[in-house]
């Protein structure tokens, strides 16, 4: 490498490093203040805590019923994502393998709904959901996520299935599998790369989603993590030390998930953006 390039790389590295510190700083502030007493937060935000107050976490855990809230978020995310995958993959498979006007029309209809923003149908959604007794119910929210997750999942599956050769399934059919058997035993395993992408995109979206739970889940026992954390930011609340503990607890699961799955998350998000 040329000497000039080397020096330039050092300068760029220094700039990027300083930016990284600024990017990370808010997360550091949140973590540090979650260990302080109220007075210490108010007197000095930037300093390290003099004593580590683990009680903040205990208080928040009990006040929010964090264990239950966490399980709600986990349950909603997992069952919604698995449902979206199991509903979309078979439909996309038939749309690709049985072309014709029916498949084209149905696929285009669902695909075109990708342009509808959630906020433009949320008002009647609440009406429809209450007619069907899906309000303030975890099952109800899961069913709604199934509906909202289908278009993107179907689109990504459709593109992927087009690229896998037909011969493999035909061989499986000749081997005496029914079409259902061939689908589950042969096709579904082949779809693993795109299934991973779809699962990651939808997990992050559903885990972090705020607006749908906000308008459909009213009772405390059904709340998700983002919804429950927001009680510390109501109009008259200023218990900042507890608020910071709550935000730390709310962030930890998704940060751990990100660190473990980083490669997959970045690949999946890139693929989703480029194809979507």
């Amino acid at each position, binding site marked *: 490498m040329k000497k000039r390039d080397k020096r330039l*790389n050092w300068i*760029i*590295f220094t*700039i*990027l490093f300083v*930016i*990284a510190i600024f*990017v990370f700083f*808010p*997360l550091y*502030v*949140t973590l540090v203040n979650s260990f302080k007493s109220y007075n210490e937060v108010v007197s*000095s*935000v930037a300093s390290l805590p003099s004593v580590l107050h683990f009680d903040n976490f205990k208080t928040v855990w009990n006040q929010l019923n964090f264990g239950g809230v966490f399980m709600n978020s986990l349950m909603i995310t997992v069952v919604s994502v698995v449902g979206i995958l199991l*509903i979309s993959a*078979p*439909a996309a*498979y*038939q*749309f690709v393998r*049985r072309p014709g006007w029916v498949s084209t029309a*149905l696929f285009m209809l*669902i695909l075109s*709904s*990708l*342009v*509808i*923003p959630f*906020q*433009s*149908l949320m*008002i*009647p*959604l609440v*009406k429809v959901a209450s007619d*069907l007794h899906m309000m303030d119910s975890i099952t109800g929210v899961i*069913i709604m996520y*199934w509906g909202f997750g*289908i278009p993107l999942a179907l689109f990504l599956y459709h593109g992927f299935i087009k690229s896998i050769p037909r011969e493999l399934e035909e061989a499986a059919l000749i081997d005496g599998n029914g*079409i*259902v058997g061939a689908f589950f035993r042969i096709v579904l395993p082949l779809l693993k790369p795109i299934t991973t992408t779809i699962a990651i995109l939808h997990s992050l979206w559903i885990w*972090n*989603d*705020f*607006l749908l739970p906000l*308008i459909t889940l009213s009772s405390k026992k059904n709340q998700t993590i*983002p919804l429950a*954390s927001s009680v510390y*930011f109501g109009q008259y609340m200023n218990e*900042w030390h507890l*608020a*910071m503990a709550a*935000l730390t607890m*709310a*962030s930890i699961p*998704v*940060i751990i998930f*990100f660190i473990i799955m*980083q490669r997959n998350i970045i690949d999946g998000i*890139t693929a989703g953006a480029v194809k979507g």
Partner: protein
Amino acid sequence: MAIKSRGWLIYAAFVAPAILFFTLIILIPFLRAIIFSFQDWDGISSNIQWVGWSNYQQLLHDASFWKSFNFTAKYVAATTILLNIFGLLLALGLNRAIKLRNLLRTVYFLPYVMGSVIVGFIWKFIITNLFAQIGEATGWSIFQKNWLSLPDYAFWSIVMVAVWQSVGYFMIIYLSALQGVPKDLIEASEIDGAGYWGRMRNVVFPLIRPAITINLFLAIANGFKGFDLNYSLTGGGPFGTTQSLAYHIYTEGFGRNLFTYASSKAVIFFLILATVTIVQSLVLKRREVEM
């Protein structure tokens, strides 16, 4: 014949769940939003009246709607420009052979995986407490103001937090495009004597144009749909100056129970976003033909 009808049965079994949930959760509510927008209903009484275009006529003169429209347009412009400039600059930096590349990339991307509402709350704390203390310590007047209570500052606060949260995402897309630029093309242009800017303009930018288009439209569409930060960071305030369209529809529909009137706003909102998406796909198609 028996085989054929069995085939259709399997087809129906594979496709029906998707159609069912799509219809129930997206199609019916969407059609109802359109129907609602021509009706007048308080959400409780059993009689719903048809009112023609009057909701739409009313919203033409609705100052709060246009206020939120203006906020949203400004917000979209600011975030689209900043996210793309900073996202591209970070990607260009990380595309070099520098130390700790992977760690830096991870740090930049980290805020994106966190929920926007959590992010909004974190920054609400930082702006109200840390900034005030910095102002006290340094005497700098910019930190002595309460940003979230002054309209201009509140606007830029939301823009700043949105950029902080999403810039890593835009960076990742630019980075993957930059890594797809063939090394020998760069070397060839170096041998031809092209300087850094000439190389960028004539070789790199044309090759990453699809990524630029994708990122521009992503930023525009996400900007229009913004809700979480307005809810958590400013609550739409001060004096409703930071109400995004999505937040405005939410407060009209669920805060004031104006279901039918808010639905007409929701339909306009849909038309704006549909236009953005259709223009995007046309632009992308034209590019493909060119190439």
